[in-house]
């Protein structure tokens, strides 16, 4: 029968032991690398999120300080510095004038 002859002939065709051994090593390595790579990817993701959070906090702090100084600069303190009191007094006429003039 053709089937028997065919089966007999192909039963003798086997991959080399060395080839199987190497293939097995590669498969084991690849399988364990897969597990490692998942945890590695998670680690990278967490690190990236932390970096983003830190960056955002740093930017917020710097911007807050800038804003605070701007507000302070354009507020009463700065205005007060720019105002010069001018006092005009004429004692003889009993006239007295006080002008707060912005320089």
């Amino acid at each position: 029968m053709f089937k028997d002859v065919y089966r007999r002939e192909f039963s003798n065709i086997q991959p080399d032991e060395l080839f199987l051994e190497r293939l097995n090593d590669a498969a084991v390595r690849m399988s364990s690398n897969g597990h490692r790579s998942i945890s590695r990817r998670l680690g990278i993701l967490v690190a990236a999120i932390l970096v983003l959070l830190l960056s955002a906090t740093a930017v917020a702090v710097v911007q807050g300080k800038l804003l605070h100084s701007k507000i302070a600069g354009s507020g009463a303190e700065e205005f007060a510095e720019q105002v010069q009191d001018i006092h005009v007094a004429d004692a003889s006429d009993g006239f007295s004038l006080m002008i707060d003039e912005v320089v």
Partner: protein
Amino acid sequence: MPIIPKDNPHGIIQAFAPMVFRLAFARTRIRADAEDICQDVMLRLFRKSYTLESEEHLRHWLIRATVQRASDLFRSSWRRRVLVTESVPEIATHDIEDTPLSRALDQLPEKYRVVVHLHYYEDYTTNEIAGILGRKPTTVRTQLVRARELLKTELGSERRQEYV
């Protein structure tokens, strides 16, 4: 019971690599090519986290992947260049036992060899082969009939009694 190849690479290699190798060899008739295909297919299985429904499902996946990889190899421009420049019979037979069946299989068109192997070695019916390979059952039956005719012609009338 579902099978996760990554959980048992050693067992999967031991159980299925010989089948993949034989099928690849049946298609290519060259040991080195069969090893390349076998390696690519088996490692592809472990590269991603596949979950296969059953052992039969895994077997079908491997057969499909092997046939696909072998077709890719035959289509590659590199291989076409090599086959044009080198002696085909020398490549085809240098690393296998020289038997009448072996010589007849060498002469068989590549697309028929897979069907012959799956039917005569792996014991699949033509309908099952069609399902695995995604072909029409009539196409598989036609290929098998033509392959048998060609093999009979190649094996010669004096040997026919032994094989038929």
